[in-house]
């Protein structure tokens, strides 16, 4: 194992523009799948049930999965942050056993 020397070629993500590209790519994919969901919902309303076949009404609501995924992850992280206040100890906590 060695630390990097100054002459090495910079990595792809050392360029902040490439990081931005990834993030914008993510936004674009989110927009496209959300749009596709709306289209499929409209088709489902128009009677194309082979394209959209929700088991429950609320599951078929446009953007349900997008909303649920986003909110689930935000809640997950915010609750986990709070858990740290109660559960986190220094790394050597159990070392004196």
């Amino acid at each position, binding site marked *: 194992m060695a630390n990097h020397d100054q002459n090495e070629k910079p990595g792809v993500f050392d360029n902040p523009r490439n990081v931005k590209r990834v993030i914008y790519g*993510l936004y674009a994919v989110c927009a496209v799948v959300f749009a596709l969901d709306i289209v499929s919902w409209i088709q489902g309303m128009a009677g194309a049930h082979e394209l959209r076949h929700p088991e429950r009404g609320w599951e078929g609501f446009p953007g349900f999965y997008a909303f*649920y*995924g986003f909110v689930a992850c*935000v809640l997950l992280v915010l609750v986990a942050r709070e858990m740290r206040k109660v*559960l986190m100890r*220094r790394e050597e906590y159990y070392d004196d056993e």
Partner: protein
Amino acid sequence: MMSSIPPAAVMILGAVLVPLLRGRLRTAYVLALPLAGLALVLSMGDTEFGKTTLFGYDMTLVRIDGLSRLFGWLFHIAAFIGLIFALRSPRNIEHPVALVYAGAAVGAVQAGDLITLFVFWEILAVSSVFLVWARAGERAFRAGMRYLVAQVGSGALLLVGILVYADAAGSVSFGDIGLDSPGGWLIMLAFGIKAAFPMLHTWLTDAYPESTFSGAVFLSAFTTKVAVYALARGFAGEDVLVWVGAAMTSFPIFYAVIENDLRRVLGYSMINQLGFMVCGIGIGTELAVNGAVAHAFNDVLFKGLLFMSMGAVLYRTGNINGSDLGGLYKSMPKTAGLCMVGAASISAFPLFSGFVSKSLVMGAALYEGYDVVWLMLLFASAGVFHHAGIKIPFFAFFSHDSGIRVKEAPGSMLIAMTVAAVLSMVNGIWPTLFLYPNLPYEVTYQPFTSAHVISQIQILFFSALAFCGLKLTGLYPPELRSVNLDVDWIVRRPLRRFALSLGGAGMALRGLVVRSGMAVTNRVVRTAERRTGPGGVLERTWSTSVSVLWAAALLAFLLILYFVR
């Protein structure tokens, strides 16, 4: 003649010769054993043999049927992949131990009766602990000891359960057990310890990250999947398992978000995946049990792949903390790529294996009217992507550049990871090739409908969006060097203090136990590693077996002391 050899014997008995071999011959032999076992299992098809009667009970050594078939294949494949990965292990004890461990897993899933199951259940426990102890050092020894207490505890419960159950049922055949009798409850609890039920799970997240870089790969494959199989065989359709499984999918992901040791993150993530299987078993319909078995099969491959990628990072950098790593995509690009295949598979991206197996369980939950459970599973699915799909590759290979520069993982490790990655993708792209046709029941489910694919892609990319937003706004909790308290704290702190308060004698005795136990296990590990000179082979094997015998005797003594302390 061939058809009367129990498949488990190939790896278990074959392992005995491993310490005698050196160099390429040893490598070839070690890798040939799981392949030979796999060939034997495949040549047998569905069968039952090795029937005997003991104390008036009918026993069946080998039973291969719809439910145990895939598990038998899986454990040979997993052993093969793991052994390729472990070729670089400096611990010579790892190969024979892993072979015995894998063989015991095969024996357990092919056991036709509960007594045979119990025997292999115990071999699983005693062999696997050496994969933790092989790491050497006090930390690994203590973690291994706690692991062993849980595993042997599960074995003891199983034995008592079998006795109570056999007395009432008049049979030890291993079929549907159910929860109508106290024996059934005890047996389920024994299975539940090995399946990492909530509150009984800490042995897993405690010991797996303390094992060697390759040990965790084996550990993640066998013990818990044997337990999943056992639950599916004995307790399919027990409603309580639906809720136990749903809890298992949900609670560990919170820990996974704040955990710093990336192999411990994978440990928590493993409980989450086991939750999907346990839930499917609890639902108990053909679709749900198919889902549980298919997911067990896929999980061994992709979780093995993730543990291998983190093992390779640990092997090269000597570190596995999220707080200390980052930027490794520059020096380990192939490992990073393979890790991301594992990440995509566990996250159930369409065309990766998790998608075609998790959907079976989730579909079944909805069809059977478990709406709340389904919402929990959906929450957990988003969470999996968050902590295993993004966090693992992000903090190891990307994030801020830690400045660590190492060599790419060795060729043998890359080969092992590639095999797992290819199998994960084959199952994901073409589930009807060999996964679906070999499940316990016929599969009529179609995972690749456009609605299903669109909803899954939505949930995944909006989870990624959440990660991105939380990271950019600084709300995402930073990786910190720390430990997080889990339920094992109760044993390790208040109960320990109570033992301390009983007086110095108890602690002095415990110190003696720990020291002598470490001395013995270190001796076993070292003896197994000692190079043999010409003509020294016989003497060496003699001393190894004597050491092992002593270790076994002392282990029994240690465990008794640990329990009565």
